């Protein structure tokens, strides 16, 4: 592995530091999980929340805690991890600091495919919708790269982001148009379309769990390949990496992660953008560590945003997709503005 090979003598200390750094991140996540389960529009005292979790309390409270807040929290965990890992892989794959499944239009493409599928075939369970999401994610990826590659300098980061923004707007408009045309039949997708964890219960999680499991585990094993790719195609290939095949596999993992995440709670932007940069800031350039941190920090961001959305307004919830968008936009602007300080 390149970074360890050229690492300074202090690498052992640094490595244990990086491992220890995961601990506070995990603690923050744990606290957020507790808040998420304890906080909602129904007043349940903390002691009762605990009673509900261990299963010895008033039936209705237990139903709300166990069957409404728990799945919402768990979905936030897996979707946060999936989007952050998807973003990390995309950034490494494209050597592009602006790459994010949301920014590049991949999630919007997946969402459009889900909405179009529902229009043609009627409302469908998440286990069926996810296949439309995969197809949409893959198509959007190809389309955005094709558009961005036009021109002499090829697919530069900003051109990719622009093509992605265009694709996001286009897919979003089409999705909205379809939803407006048939609001009753597609009732369920209306809130989902802006990116929402509310109203998503266990069936969604259970049906999508296999895809999340495969995607997240596979993503965690891409560190070595991403490290090699970061050396440049030529050197990576000299070091024994089969570039094209690796890229194909990596793109497939991204489509799997983003398709599953979008099928679960709609197109969410910026998680895959912010988290890899934050992780890189903590760990340095080794993708194995960036991936590990992304797995923890992605859920921190998504769950934190979801909790924020629940308390921001006195009467209604702000969908998590909106909260993340508001938090992510300035980060995105900073990254574009000061791109030179962020090297990949």
């Amino acid at each position, binding site marked *: 592995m390149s970074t360890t090979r050229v690492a300074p003598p202090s690498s052992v200390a640094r490595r244990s530091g990086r491992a220890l750094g995961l601990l506070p991140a995990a603690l923050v996540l744990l606290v957020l999980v507790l808040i998420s389960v304890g906080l*909602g*529009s*129904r007043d349940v005292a903390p002691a009762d929340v605990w009673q509900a979790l261990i299963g010895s309390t008033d*039936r*209705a409270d237990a*139903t*709300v805690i166990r*069957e*409404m807040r728990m799945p919402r929290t768990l979905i936030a965990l897996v979707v946060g991890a999936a989007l952050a890992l998807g973003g990390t892989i995309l950034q490494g794959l494209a050597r592009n600091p602006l790459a994010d499944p949301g920014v590049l239009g991949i999630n919007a493409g997946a969402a459009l495919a889900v909405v179009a599928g529902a229009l043609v075939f009627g*409302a469908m369970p998440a286990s069926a919708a996810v296949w439309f999401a995969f197809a949409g994610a893959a198509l959007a990826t190809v389309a955005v790269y094709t558009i961005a590659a036009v021109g002499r300098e090829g697919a530069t980061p900003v051109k990719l982001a622009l093509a992605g923004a265009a694709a996001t707007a286009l897919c979003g408009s089409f999705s909205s148009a379809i939803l407006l045309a048939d609001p*009753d*039949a597609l*009732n*369920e997708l*209306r*809130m989902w379309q802006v990116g929402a964890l*509310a*109203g998503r*219960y*266990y*069936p969604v999680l259970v049906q999508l769990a296999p895809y999340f499991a495969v995607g997240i585990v596979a993503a965690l094993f891409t560190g070595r390949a991403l490290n090699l790719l970061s050396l440049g195609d030529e050197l990576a290939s000299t070091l024994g990496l089969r570039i094209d095949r690796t890229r194909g596999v990596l793109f497939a993992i991204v489509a799997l992660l983003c398709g599953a995440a979008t099928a679960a709670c709609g197109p969410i932007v910026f998680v895959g953008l912010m988290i890899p940069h934050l992780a890189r800031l903590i760990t340095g350039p080794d993708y194995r560590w960036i991936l590990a941190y992304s797995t923890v920090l992605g859920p921190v961001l998504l769950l934190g945003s979801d909790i924020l959305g629940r308390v921001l307004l006195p009467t209604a*919830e702000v969908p998590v997709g909106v909260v993340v968008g508001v938090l992510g936009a300035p980060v995105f602007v900073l990254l574009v503005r000061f791109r030179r300080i962020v090297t990949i």
Partner: protein
Amino acid sequence: MPGRARVAATLISAVLAVTVAGCAGPSEAEPDGPSAEPEWSYVSGDGQTYTADEVPERIIAEAYAAKVLMEFGITPVAIWASSPIAEDVGLQGADFTGIEVIGQEWGKIDVAAAAELAPDLIVGDWWPVEEAYSGFEAGVEDTSRRLADLAPVVGASQGDSIVSLIEGYADLAASLGADPEAIAQSRTTFEAAVTDFEAANEENPGVSALAISPWDTNYAIAVPAYAPELLDFQRWGLDVIVPDTPDPDFPYWETLSMETADRYQPDLILFDDRNHPGNEEILAEAPISAEIAAFAAGQTTTWPAYWVHTYGDYAAELTRLAEVIRATDASVGE
């Protein structure tokens, strides 16, 4: 019977209103002054008496108003609706063949097409709270409002009972030359349905009902004060639950979150029929639905939400609901 008494009272008050208004002097829509006895006059929902030298024949009506006028035998030349006619649950069963449609979207009326039809009269509900007729409320496009330049606008008033609304249209239809027999027949069928509905509540007393419309992650409960058909149900013996805290900015509903959807425990759940079964599916997916005893027991049906304008529709709905009430276990809720 309270139902019949109600109808009779409404009729009497309508007659009195016409008489009083008739004595009150010159009317607004009659520029020629009070000297000539007008051929046509109508006390409209806004409380004013409209008159004309000839009985209006070419009528353009809002689709709900058109449906009730047609039930009484008066056919308009054109209609406008606030949503696609084929999808509107309130317009099912109406045959608008041969009638020009000049609008199928809220706030949008093709006034040019209306002008070509040279209407004598425009008909739509009067909304007392908004002080406007259907088609002329706040938010309607200015170009659509110019419909009012073509002819006088009249219509029955929305209020605290669907019966008075329908009777307002019965008066209008009669003034326009409808056969009084047809009106009376339609009313008789309806009164039988009211009697049946009241009987159902007497046979199975104590049934409480909650009128709801779940959407997204919300559990919206209709406030009867703003739903005349729910007020009617209460008058005829059904205990329609009044929610405690209507939404401050839109008091038609009290909107609960799904997490608190078990707050009210009725014996019978009435789903808003305009977006049924989608709203029931949304509730069914939310695990809290298992904690709403009536839903868990399958004691659910729909209610005709905010659209009833004809005795025919009302009679059919009341007859259906009477059967549901008879079959409801009144010990399910709290």
